[in-house]
């Protein structure tokens, strides 16, 4: 079974500082990895994904994530945080099965990111 761990429920970062939101995963075979952001009373919005290729992927709003196969991690990063980045962030993983091409997308429990002005 596939799983995702987000070890930090809450991350606080001063505006302008770099931020990291941690994620580790477990899956059979090669993983498809995703980050989503959720603002209050809204659905999840896609930020970025890793499928294959370069380990550093870039996404929306200046976010990037680094895939590390040996550590089974996919940490979300941003060089300079904005107050508007404050939200709930979810890491998700999808494995690959033969019948339909994909397993379901499995989410972590989320990390609440607060950027302090």
């Amino acid at each position, binding site marked *: 079974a596939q799983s995702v761990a987000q070890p930090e429920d809450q991350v606080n970062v001063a505006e302008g500082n770099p931020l990291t939101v941690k994620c580790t995963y477990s899956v059979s075979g090669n993983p498809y990895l995703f980050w989503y952001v959720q603002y209050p009373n809204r659905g999840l919005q896609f930020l970025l994904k890793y499928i294959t290729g370069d380990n550093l992927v870039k996404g929306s709003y200046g976010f990037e994530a680094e895939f590390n196969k040996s550590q089974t991690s996919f940490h979300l990063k941003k060089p300079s945080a904005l107050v508007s980045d404050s939200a709930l962030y979810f890491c998700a993983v999808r494995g690959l099965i033969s019948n339909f091409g994909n397993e*379901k997308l499995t989410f972590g429990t989320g990390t609440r990111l607060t950027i302090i002005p």
Partner: protein
Amino acid sequence: GAGVSQTPSNKVTEKGKYVELRCDPISGHTALYWYRQSLGQGPEFLIYFQGTGAADDSGLPNDRFFAVRPEGSVSTLKIQRTERGDSAVYLCASSPDFSNSPLHFGNGTRLTVT
């Protein structure tokens, strides 16, 4: 273009009642997912459709939950004999295929069972 639409946005029902939650996916998206999100938790997978058929319904918690997608577009999640523990936000998502495309989520239906 239009995103994933879920109706109603809020639903309050009494314990024991039957409810239906509707999802209109993005036009042309063949894959449709239902997730449930409780307060302070990540989305929990319920069921996944590829076209009209349920490709994976392993997340449905029990036989009170059922979902259909008869024409391969709109989907309805049906909950019979609702219980207070069913209270959650029910999220629908769609994607254009079943490979590595990201899921596009609706804003969810907040179900409250009193």
